[in-house]
């Protein structure tokens, strides 16, 4: 969410296709919650179009969104993992089998001896009112 940190509220609207403004929007910025709903260094789940996303607010108030589905256990639990760091990377550890993922890229930093499997990540923006938006691909 680095470049989009200080989006204004008006920017949080459907983004139009650059070639054909009449087509359906390709992506939407969807409001999820207020920044203050999120606790520092802990996650919360959000539900969009029946899909589950895990939101994390790190100690420096950056917000990350990754898939809620834990690729190792198959349960939707990533938001309940412990937030931390590995080197410079902000991380979350799966609450099931403790695989560690980079919150910025979703890549697996410690697979606990398994094959590495990553998490999907989504861009996040926070507007001037402190509302948190996710860039959601319309399907």
């Amino acid at each position: 969410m680095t470049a989009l940190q200080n989006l204004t509220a008006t920017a949080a609207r459907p983004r139009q296709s650059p070639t054909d403004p009449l087509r359906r929007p390709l992506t939407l910025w969807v409001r999820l919650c207020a920044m203050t709903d999120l606790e520092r260094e802990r996650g919360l789940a959000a539900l969009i179009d029946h899909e589950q996303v895990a939101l994390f607010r790190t100690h420096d108030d950056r917000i990350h969104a990754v898939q809620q589905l834990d690729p190792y256990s198959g349960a939707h639990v990533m938001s309940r993992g412990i937030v931390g760091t590995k080197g410079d990377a902000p991380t979350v550890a799966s609450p099931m089998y403790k695989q560690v993922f980079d919150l910025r890229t979703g890549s697996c930093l410690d697979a606990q001896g398994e094959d590495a499997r990553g998490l999907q990540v989504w861009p996040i923006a926070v507007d001037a009112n402190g509302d948190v938006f996710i860039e959601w691909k319309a399907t």
Partner: protein
Amino acid sequence: MPRTSKRTDAAASVSDAHVVVVGAGMVAHRFVESLRSRDPEGRWRVTVIGEEDRHPYDRVSLTSYFAGASADDLALQRSILDEDDRVRFIRGDAVARIDREARRVTTESGVSTAYDTLVLATGSYAAKLTVDGFDLTGCFVYRTLDDVEALRTFVDRRSVELGRPLRGTVIGGGLLGLEAAGALQGLDVRCTVVQSSDKLMSAQLDTRGADSLRRLIESRGIAVRTGSVTTRLDPDVRGNVRGLEFREGDYADTDVVVFTVGVRPRDQLARAAGVDVHPRGGVIIDAGCTTSDPRILAIGEVANFDGRAVGLVAPGYAMAEVAATRLLGSEATFPGYDDSTKLKLNGVDVASFGDAFAQTPGALDVVYADPVAGVYKKLVLSDDAKTLLGGILVGDASAYGMLRPLLGGPLGADPAAYLMPEVTGDALANAELPDEALVCSCNSVTAGTIRCAVTDEGCTDVAGVKACTRAGAACGSCLPLVKKLVGTELARSGATLSTALCEHFTHSRAQLFDAVRVSGLGTFSAIIDRFGTGRGCDICKPVLASILSSLGHGHVLDGENATLQDTNDHVMANIQKDGSYSVVPRIAGGEITPEGLLVIGQVAKDFGLYTKITGGQRIDMFGARLEQLPEIWKRLVDAGFESGHAYGKSLRTVKSCVGSTWCRYGVQDSVGMAVQLELRYRGLRSPHKIKLGVSGCARECAEARGKDVGVIATEAGWNMYVGGNGGFTPRHAVLFAEGLDDAGLLQAIDRVLMYYIRTADRLQRTAPWLEDMGGGVEALRAVVFDDSLGIVEDLDAAMAQHVDAYEDEWKATLADPEKLRRFASFVNAPTTADPSLAYTSERGQARPATAQERENPRVLIAGTTLAVRR
């Protein structure tokens, strides 16, 4: 060992550009992994051709498929065949012909591939008895994933058709037969194992060992017939198997039959191509795994070495390493078959290794047998009783890990020490392992290789050694031994095994405890700023949460404390495989009123929860969703229940027998004492979970000696034991003090527990804590009773503070809206249930649906909309 063998120029000429591997089983996978991981220049291009349309999988663990493992779970590391551009993997196509002149293989679909070297790894097929009716519907073998999938599908369908649980027969009482019987039992099939010889596992066990195994198997509800030969299988009118006749003349009904009568090498390809094949089956190889055609190697179960073809994976792995090493131009030889086996069947341990039948001239037996517990252990020793030649362990194979590496070498300790029920790592710690002793049998790593990793490769911890040698990277059961070896070797070189908690703290847990206590810091941010680096992780954060709680820094969900908690502590419930939680209210001492039982029953019923009695004498309710936890607990708290801390690294339960109140043998009030202890130590956070037990007499019905602190009543007062536990490495607690009165008992337990909390490592239970303590139990007695460290006042005060400050975590949470916000299922839909949850019914209760059941909605009884009455 092949990995460390020297390169010779003579062997280098064998290698050339393209190796074709026929077969894609475990041994083929290991061969490719070994070859490619040691060939960074890419001298070899590899083509693997496998008949099954699957990625190579762990055939040894096939039975775990019935315990819920999916085909994906069993898959071996995928990157070896899928992500290496020097490796081509053709699956779902079998090699039909080898043309040795042209050096080409042709598959059934007509693909023709040239090779420079051909590796046969076609494995075996499962044999069926050639009696009438062997191929009726309902007759299976147990070899491939397709086999077990077909078996399960058939059992599911047939039990619906017949409207009752099935009767099953496993023909063949070897290792695989017993596995298959366990799998059938898991499918609710009443099962009989039929063995033609007079004992089970006749290739591995002697008569007494087999007798012991038979009793254990039968006690688990599986019937056994030995000395019994099947002569005919009969169909019903639709062609399903319905019964079988035995040579003795009697007849048995059956609905499903599994043949496990052995495997035969799949040597037809080699035979057709004119490669030498042994009369008893198998492609003949020399110690370099080369067949009669120098361009063709054979490895694994298809190979015949020294007149034998063996159906075990470990020798196949050894051959794979030899073949890969030779292709890379080095020398290596297959040392011969190691027939050692260890398995766990329905919780029954069996191991057999080395010269198990004492066939070495002059060999001596040392035997320990406990027919009541079903334990039989035998060591076979050389005629001077010094060298270990082999052994059999039935019912308790815990010593296998220690004995296996000593095979062929000096035992180094009294043989009896290895056979007694409480054999521990101590016996081995004193016995110096020879360099050639095999420590990790999965990956063939010797003690010498591990020592080298420390002395020559500069590894300074277990993780480093694991990465460098692969010791412990497969099943992990040798890791405690690896840790000891690494520690000893580091100490020898003047270094010590790093005790740093993680990358954020260089302290051990005990050092961090002291640092936090002395500094008086009460928040994670302040502690990591002062003593650590970064922002913590899933290792150090829960440790600090526990330390802060032990030091009385408030509720687990107070402010920043909450972010440190593992998911269980964070929501004060136990996470289950599907992400739902289980709820355990405290039932102190296992004593509960009928009213209390009714409340729990009603809550479980209203929320559709699966209920089960736990091993700690209380009731666990499963399937609660995150957002339901506060509602469930409101009901429980209103009825007078409190948190049972089943989720915490903390006191779990104090188990008790009924004691002198009711029991005609009891000499003290064990329930009263158990309740008192449970209420005193409830909520006490510690390095690992703690369990206590109180028995009202020496009959020990509470199994108190299996607990961290055990209390056993005598006429003269309470005897106290410390350092027992169940779990992965069971230990009996050792006698700590005798004849204590109530006050003396409480004081001694206060001090032991608080000293443990302050000084143990992360996740170190009391047994290894006591073992690592210099001076052992004597030293602990000196701390507690003689105040040898001058800290007992401090320990007493800390415990008094804990007892005074106790509050029920759930009650406090329900009273605090800020804490309750954490139980929202979704930040933008706080009461919407997780849509991915799905349940089905089993024995009248809900359980999570398996992946297969989810695909077949007919069997689902509910998604997340279980009927909930409010």
